[in-house]
């Protein structure tokens, strides 16, 4: 988190997303630096999740360039994409645990696939990851047997299984009670501080934005692009753009 040495890990350059005739946003450019907690925010329908899906390589950009850890995501072939993806973890909105496997099995899945560890060691790593997200003892539960907040934490444990350098979160606090969502915020902060993981979050929860974000970008539906960038606390006080001001101060348009 040293502000002196900023190494960009994600660089988005003039990205345009378009489906058919519908342009979601155009000419979006920003960089995310190593060890930073970076938040993408905006109202519903502004393309936050679309942007995230572009960065993790699920959608191909209509125009523009995305580099993650130095690899051009749009131009990468399957093998390169697989390599880059091993370097990052994604926590989907509802956890996206595989319903037919236990929680422990879900976390162990990438370890079985990508490492040569023995079963006992995988078991140890799984317990450690579950301990990190405060789910110790839930190895043999099925996803249908745990609550929504626990599913998210289990999803986080799975996303962290291979010790990624970048973690992406899609709406981490959506559908969680205030206490659980603060706990999740603290967990994100401790992972960021402890492991130095770069964290990219898509959200519109103001409380957690003030809590954890180092830097934000704000997307807008009608502007079809970024309308604000910087420290959320500063933007709240100083922004002159009514759209940004109203968002941070919870005022209607």
């Amino acid at each position, binding site marked *: 988190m040293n502000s002196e040495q900023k190494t960009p890990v994600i660089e988005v350059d003039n990205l345009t997303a378009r489906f058919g005739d519908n342009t979601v946003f155009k000419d979006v450019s920003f960089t995310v630096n190593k060890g930073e907690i970076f938040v993408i925010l905006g109202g519903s329908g502004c393309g936050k999740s679309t942007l995230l899906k572009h960065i993790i390589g699920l959608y191909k950009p209509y125009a523009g360039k995305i580099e993650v850890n130095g690899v051009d995501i749009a131009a990468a072939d399957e093998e390169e994409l697989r390599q880059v993806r091993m370097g990052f973890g994604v926590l989907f909105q509802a956890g996206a645990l595989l*319903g*037919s496997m236990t929680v*422990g099995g879900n976390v162990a899945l990438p370890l079985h696939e990508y*490492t*040569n*560890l*023995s079963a006992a*060691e995988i078991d*140890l*790593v799984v*317990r*450690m*990851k*579950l*301990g*990190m997200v*405060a789910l*110790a*003892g*839930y*190895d*043999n*539960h099925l*996803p*249908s047997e745990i609550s929504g907040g626990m599913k998210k934490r289990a999803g986080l444990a799975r996303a*962290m299984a*291979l*010790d990624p350098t970048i973690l992406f979160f899609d709406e981490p606090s959506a559908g969680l009670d205030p206490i659980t969502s603060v706990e999740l915020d603290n967990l994100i902060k*401790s*992972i960021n*501080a*402890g*492991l*130095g993981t770069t964290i990219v979050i898509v959200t519109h929860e103001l409380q957690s934005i003030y809590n954890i974000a180092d830097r934000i970008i704000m997307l807008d539906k009608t502007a079809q692009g970024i309308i604000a960038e910087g420290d959320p606390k500063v933007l709240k006080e100083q922004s002159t753009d009514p759209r940004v001001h109203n968002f941070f101060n919870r005022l209607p348009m």
Partner: protein
Amino acid sequence: MSIVVSGRVVLDSLQALMAEVRSALRDRSPSQVTMDLGGVTYLDSAGALALVQIETEAQAGSMPFQFTHATDEAGRIMSLIDRTALTTAPLITERTSANLIEQIGEAFMSFLADVIMVMTFIGELLRALVYAGVHPRSVRWGDVLFYMKRAGVDGLPIVSLISLLLGLIIAFMSSLQLKQFGANIYVASLVGVAMVRELGPIMTAILVAGRSGSAFAAEIGTMIVNEEVDALAVMGFDTTRFLIVPKVIASMLVVPLLSLYASIFGILGGMIIGVTGLDLSVYTYAKQTMDSIDTFGVVSSLIKAAVFAMIIAGIGCQRGTQVRGGAEAVGAATTSAVVSAIFLIIVCDSAFAIILYYIQV
């Protein structure tokens, strides 16, 4: 004893590091151990786990153990690891599988429960159908049309292709036998009767079970997973009337037509063999077919097809409503819908064979 760890201590080196330190500790059994982390350039959580685990194991063997020259960063990462979590027993221990007798008992009980559920469902469905007959305005006719297109019109190509081929095959196989007696003309009767009485309805039913029965089960099952069915119930809609009746009515209207269509194509297939291979004229073949089919046969086959349609759509929807959980349950319900529908069609067909025999005589 002093151990110096240096370089990248990460997930990939976890196995080797732990094995090496363990064997060193075992061979030398030192009175105390210091681990020098000064040379560690990069540590991730799995690397930290290895270090913590070694420390725990050493301390368990009452061996004084300490880390030296650990950077702040390494300390932070190691402090993230919850040591009690590493030894916490799972809250659910291995799911025990029952013994054979218990399994047989359970299978029987679940079969009984299934029979009861199907019976209840049939009762509910019949009630809803009668209600729909008395109050035609309560039926969602837009949905009925939609499913008629899905189950009927969209199914035409495959039904016609399969029936045509079936007619060809029956005519060809039977002609090989009947030729020996000079009874070529009876190929027409055989194909006509077989297609109209049995194969038309049965083949159509099996195809519709595969195409539409499964689709109904998957659709309703996914709606349950997404809480859409709960939403309908809360808004005061009767699930049976809202979701199931349109599908059942659409199938009952469209399957008899499909089965008629299948019979015609089967007869056409037979005619192709008759005309090309058996020196029969189109007129003779058609005449012989018409003579051997009676109105009773056609009407009873239409009724049979309608009953099959009710079974297919009903079972499909019933299996769909039983879905609990997620994606896996939807798959199981879909399979079960097709298998049970085909089984019940065959059972029902045997009943029809017997009943029709006595009615006709």
